[in-house]
């Protein structure tokens, strides 16, 4: 593809200073650490990882809600920092996790959906009303529901309102931050189907953030696995699930409990050490929990090595690694990044 990628992150880094306890010294928390990726227009990049891995911070950086400590975000080939906020709004929009917190409880649904149009400042009110009505219908809400307040809607309906608000400006990119995590399974399926339909019809690009690997597998064309602020593996989706390169990805995949009786609960073999973003281990940041860690891991940060569908940051994938340890699909050259 010759066109500029829809989203491009270059060396993104975000550091927070937090104080735990009244007397403790403030500590630096590196929430996102040197993250680079690009998402081609029309595709879906799924970002997975556990709580505290920095995936939500990444979403906020891409949306421009947080300024990066270092690095750049490019949207549609233009640097986000240089775009006026109204121009940004026409390009990229969010859908958040909690449908209870993402809608202003004091405004009617139709006003919530109209808000981005109003913020543009140049949309005539007649056009506004018709676009809102059209959008509500598109996400499966009735005109009557447009007159209600969010408190009168169910979780799934609220998430439809949030989607309508995100799409009313016809953006090209939508950042979905855990859009179905707060919903029941039966409703989750409705929302996932709606998002997929809208993407096909409107040619949208999604950055889809979730902790649920099964959901990401279902929607994403490419997947990035985050661990303690870094993308430790990125791969074309199908290859990732067929042949995961990073031991952490393997553990994540093994932990997905599919509804298949008789398989029992897998042993993920990660021990009880928990990742702490305020205290990132030296070398490979995954080594304290890694079942395959060896003497090199705590000393040296691994480079990115090629896998079947992309790359992963693990010493085991290095062609010169101890024989037999190299993960499936590792190729012979280090990826140029």
């Amino acid at each position: 593809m010759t066109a500029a990628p829809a989203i491009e992150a270059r060396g993104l880094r975000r550091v927070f200073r937090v104080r735990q306890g009244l007397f403790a010294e403030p500590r630096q928390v590196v929430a996102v650490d040197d993250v680079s990726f690009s998402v081609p227009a029309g595709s879906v990049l799924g970002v997975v990882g556990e709580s505290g891995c920095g995936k939500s911070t990444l979403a906020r950086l891409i949306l421009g809600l947080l300024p990066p400590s270092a690095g750049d975000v490019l949207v549609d080939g233009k640097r986000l920092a240089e775009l006026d906020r109204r121009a940004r709004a026409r390009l990229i929009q969010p859908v958040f996790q909690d449908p209870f917190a993402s809608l202003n409880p004091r405004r009617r649904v139709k006003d919530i959906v109209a808000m981005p149009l109003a913020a543009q400042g140049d949309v005539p009110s007649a056009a506004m009303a018709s676009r809102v009505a059209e959008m509500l219908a598109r996400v499966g809400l009735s005109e009557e529901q447009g007159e209600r307040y969010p408190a009168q809607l169910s979780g799934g309906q609220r998430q439809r309102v949030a989607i309508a608000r995100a799409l009313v400006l016809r953006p090209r990119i939508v950042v979905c931050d855990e859009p179905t995590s707060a919903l029941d399974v039966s409703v989750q399926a409705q929302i996932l189907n709606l998002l997929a339909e809208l993407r096909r019809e409107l040619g949208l690009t999604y950055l889809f953030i979730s902790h649920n690997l099964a959901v990401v597998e279902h929607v994403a064309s490419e997947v990035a696995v985050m661990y303690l602020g870094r993308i430790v593996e990125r791969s074309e989706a199908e290859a990732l699930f067929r042949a995961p390169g990073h031991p952490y990805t393997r553990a994540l995949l093994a932990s997905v409990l599919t509804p298949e009786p008789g398989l029992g609960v897998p042993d993920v073999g990660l021990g009880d050490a928990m990742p702490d973003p305020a205290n990132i281990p030296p070398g490979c940041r995954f080594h304290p929990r890694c079942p395959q860690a060896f003497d090199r891991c705590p000393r040296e940060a691994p480079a990115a090595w090629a896998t079947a569908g992309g790359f992963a940051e693990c010493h085991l994938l290095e062609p010169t690694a101890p024989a037999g340890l190299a993960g499936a699909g590792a190729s012979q050259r280090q990826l140029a990044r």
Partner: protein
Amino acid sequence: MSEALTAPGDGATGRRLAFLLGALIVGVVALAAVLGPSITPHDPFAQDLGKRLVVPFWMEGGGREHPLGTDQLGRDYLARLIYGARISMVIGVLTVVASGLIGTTLGVLGGFFGGRIDDLVLFAITCRLSIPVVLVALAVVGLMGNSFTLVILVLGLLLWDRFAVVARSTTMQVRNLDYVSAAWCAGSSSFSMLVREVLPNIATHLAVVATLEMALAILLEAALSFLGLGVPPPLPSWGLMIAEAKDYMFFSPWVIMVPGVALFALVFGINLLGDGLREMLGTQDAR
């Protein structure tokens, strides 16, 4: 889930009654303040030394001419009480308007923008809290002379702390909610985010504070006037009426009862209103 596990409040009707009682008290006082002199036959300032300390109607010797009796200068107590209601209400309302504007502005700005601005706001609040209100108010009035406007000005400039604290903390909460983030991503201006997304969602909290502050302002004005450093005589502030009656209270205790009960009832009513608002807030927050 917690909603399903808590039993519905059985005191709901009791609370509504309390709210209505509060509204009734405040309503009656406000009406008296507005109608003022047109509902009493007597002039609150007219002295009649021949009719000093006439007892109220419920005591032996009380009459219909002066239902609440007269004071030490023979002025009709009911007329003075009604005029005093006007003073209390005006002081309460204007103080709340002034302090509400100052406090809400500071609190919302600090809570919304955070960082340096918030540090400054927090510092201002801390400084304000460490200044003893009564003492400073007394000192200012003492040095600059008693006047009605000065009392309002001083109280308005001093009582904004709770507005600022509440506005700041609620704004911080709202500011971190996703609907504000969504407005930001939609390109809304800071002003429109404050006005459309933040203010409507903290308004009820501020209303509760307003009732508390109004009650406090009325009490403080009465205290200042009682100490002789508030509303100047012969204006019939309730606090001043108590102060003037103090010398006679050991012989005829009703002279301090009448203005005292009025003051207590008004403040009590305002607090009942505030409590009612707070309850409504509680049920709202629980969705």
